[in-house]
């Protein structure tokens, strides 16, 4: 069933009224914002000239037209219109219900009566405006931009400050040079120059020893003389002259490569220096081994060997091989020389009789080892293994892959040391790489220091998936049990 004509007519009429009211509403808003834009344009009347007088009213008109167009074209819901008509004409929702139920699939016979009743009532209505006008907030303030625009249009143009970017192009004019010694660049330019030129500061010729000694009333140990040195405080420092004149110490600072490496050079022996250089040469720090560096190194080793070592032959062989272009042979010879050099260093340290740990608490196993294996140098524990070789599983060249178990704690962990068995060569610990005789003795470290290292090793091993996943909890529980003790 189509909507009855009377209801349709009423809805269309009210919808048209709504659109007109919307157009009024939105055109007022558009006029306000257009007026604001016009004020901005008129503010630049000086620059724009007569164009501003044309653009400003055009902006207002554009705002009005845009607002009115938006209000007119905005969608109007017929059911909303019907409800509005119901309220306005006291129709008790008849129009809205009839409009909705006229096409309803579940419509009852009573709906026909409703539609007929509604049509009858709507036909009897007198045509009147039912949608009240709604003035937006912008509409109440519309006069402000319009009045401001009118004033700006009639008033003379406002001179706006002319700004320009800084010209960085080189100037052809010669700039006046100022003597750097006559003015202080840290002072403002506008500051008037003093009649008397600044005195060249004299403290650059002095040192603190002289000042402390020349104090008039100061006695020995009187620090107040330093802080009351009014001669210094009254003069301004002239850093420019200081830099201009230069300082030998500053020049020294520039030659950083000539500064001594106090930590490595003066605490190491000559042999250690050679070790270090050869290590850095062979450890891959430089992708290509420079023959020149290798030659220098072999030359140094040969020189050291002539002083009392037995590796000068190896060094000479390396030199010959290098001369012949056989770098591999030269490296092997240098490796042999290095091994001999290190063995001699170890033997010298052992000969000094250094002992580590508490000798009285050392177990019988340590003494047996000192008696039996300590003398000879052919046992596996006396060999100095290379990098990556040793007792640990997978390292090879070991008859005792795991070693003896570590002694258990016997007291409070706060004053107990852990006795372990040290070996030669590089250890899998963080700071237990002992060399010389101490390396052959049972290692005793404070428990609380060791447990932290091993806990960190445990975490690293678990992180690197070196421990099977199923054993993670077991390992962690073990360390947790150690903490609880």
């Amino acid at each position: 069933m189509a909507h009855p004509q009377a209801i349709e007519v009423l809805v269309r009429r009210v919808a048209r009224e709504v659109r007109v009211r919307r157009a009024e509403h939105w055109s007022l808003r558009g006029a306000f914002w257009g007026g604001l834009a016009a004020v901005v344009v008129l503010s630049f009347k000086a620059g724009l000239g007569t164009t501003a007088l044309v653009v400003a009213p055009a902006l207002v008109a554009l705002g009005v037209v845009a607002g009115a167009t938006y209000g007119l074209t905005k969608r109007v819901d017929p059911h909303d219109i019907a409800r509005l008509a119901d309220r306005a004409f006291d129709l008790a929702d008849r129009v809205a219900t009839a409009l909705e139920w006229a096409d309803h699939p579940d419509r009852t016979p009573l709906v026909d009566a409703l539609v007929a009743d509604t049509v009858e009532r709507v036909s009897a209505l007198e045509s009147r405006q039912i949608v009240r006008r709604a003035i937006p907030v912008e509409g109440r303030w519309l006069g402000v931009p319009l009045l401001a625009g009118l004033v700006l249009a009639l008033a003379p143009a406002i001179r706006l400050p002319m700004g320009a970017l800084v010209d960085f192009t080189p100037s052809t004019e010669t700039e006046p040079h100022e003597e750097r010694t006559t003015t202080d660049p840290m002072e403002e330019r506008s500051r008037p120059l003093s009649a008397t030129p600044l005195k060249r500061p004299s403290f650059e010729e002095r040192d603190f020893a002289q000042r402390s000694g020349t104090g008039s009333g100061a006695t020995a140990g009187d620090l107040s003389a330093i802080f009351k040195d009014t001669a210094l405080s009254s003069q301004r420092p002239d850093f420019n002259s200081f830099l201009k004149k230069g300082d030998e110490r500053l020049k020294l600072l520039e030659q950083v490569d000539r500064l001594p490496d106090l930590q490595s050079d003066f605490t190491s022996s000559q042999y250690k220096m050679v070790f270090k250089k050869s290590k850095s040469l062979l450890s891959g720090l430089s992708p290509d081994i420079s023959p020149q560096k290798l030659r220098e190194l072999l030359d140094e080793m040969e020189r050291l060997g002539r002083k009392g070592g037995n590796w000068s032959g190896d060094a000479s062989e390396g030199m010959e091989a290098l001369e012949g272009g056989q770098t591999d042979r030269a490296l092997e010879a240098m490796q042999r020389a290095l091994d001999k050099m290190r063995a001699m260093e170890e033997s010298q340290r052992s000969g000094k009789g250094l002992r580590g740990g508490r000798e009285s608490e050392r177990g019988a196993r340590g003494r047996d080892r000192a008696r039996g294996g300590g003398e000879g140098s052919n046992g596996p524990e006396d060999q100095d293994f290379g990098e990556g070789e040793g007792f640990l599983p997978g390292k090879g060249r070991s008859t005792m892959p795991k070693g003896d178990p570590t002694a258990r704690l016997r007291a409070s962990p706060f004053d107990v040391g852990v006795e372990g068995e040290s070996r030669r060569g590089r250890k899998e610990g963080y700071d237990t790489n002992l060399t010389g005789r101490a390396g052959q003795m049972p290692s005793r470290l404070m428990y609380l220091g060791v447990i932290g290292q091993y806990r960190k090793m445990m975490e690293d091993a678990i992180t690197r998936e070196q421990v099977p996943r199923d054993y993670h909890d077991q390992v962690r529980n073990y360390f947790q049990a150690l903490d609880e003790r």
Partner: protein
Amino acid sequence: MSQDARVEAFVTAFEALRAEVEKVIVGHREIITHVLTSMFAGGHVLLEGVPGLGKTLLIKTLAEGLELSFSRIQFTPDLMPADIIGTNIIVEDADGRKHFQFQQGPIFAHILLSDEINRATPKTQSALLEGMQEGAVTVGGASRPLPAPFFVLATQNPIEMEGTYPLPEAQLDRFLFKLRVRYPALDELNAIIDRTTRSRHVTVSRVMSGSTVLSLRELIREVPIATHVRDLASTIVMATHPSWAGSPEPTRRFVRYGASPRGAQALVLGAKVRALAEGRYNVSVEDIKALAAPALRHRVILNFEGEAEGVDTDTLIGQIVEAAEAVTASGKEVFLR
């Protein structure tokens, strides 16, 4: 019969019945209208008021105006469910054989007056539950239908709380409306005095039969309701729930439990009756607003704070209706949206 004639017949019957009741009852026009509205909507009514305001008389008069059976139960604490529903008794027939025979209770009537219903125990009160909702009672495993139309009108006294059993929420929810009978105005009181202290006897005519009531109930359900009016009813019911996001602040503060879906049904059905009684073919927003209080006041359960501060349920529902109207689109300007 045309639709106009059907509606006209409803309006005539409604007015005639109200006129018959008003022959006896002075004032209380709104109460009478709501009682009739509930009857045509197929619901039950709980009348609450102090003694002597004519609650029982109103119901008796209504029953006299209808060609329907009427029974009255005076609820007391020792009343048992069997006293309401009935029971199986052993009877002996002409041949001397004994067998059980169901003896119907007073509930088997078209109009049941449950006087002072809150004086009976909850066990007895709940004997009415099935009958009020299903229109049938179950006795001895057999379901027995009640006569149609079945209409329960219960009364309760709000001030004599000694020895009473407040109706449980499930029982309250069965009532379509809860009506508060208030004191008559001065002129109404004078009319009551004049009418009841003379020797003239007022006769109430039977203006409507049970079948007419049933046919008019069918007509009620044909009344269309617009979407926005239905939405308003739903929103009002939802706004009685403190947990609902759109509920107003008074609801969240004073209400413990809100109305059930039966509340929305009561609201819409009552609104349809009201619309038809006014000769309209559709439900309006005003119908919903007018019936919000009688349909929801017994379904909104106040919390402790509401009880302690003496919050009036009707005032609370008025605030809820206002809030719901603001939430729905019916209260907004059309052309600004």
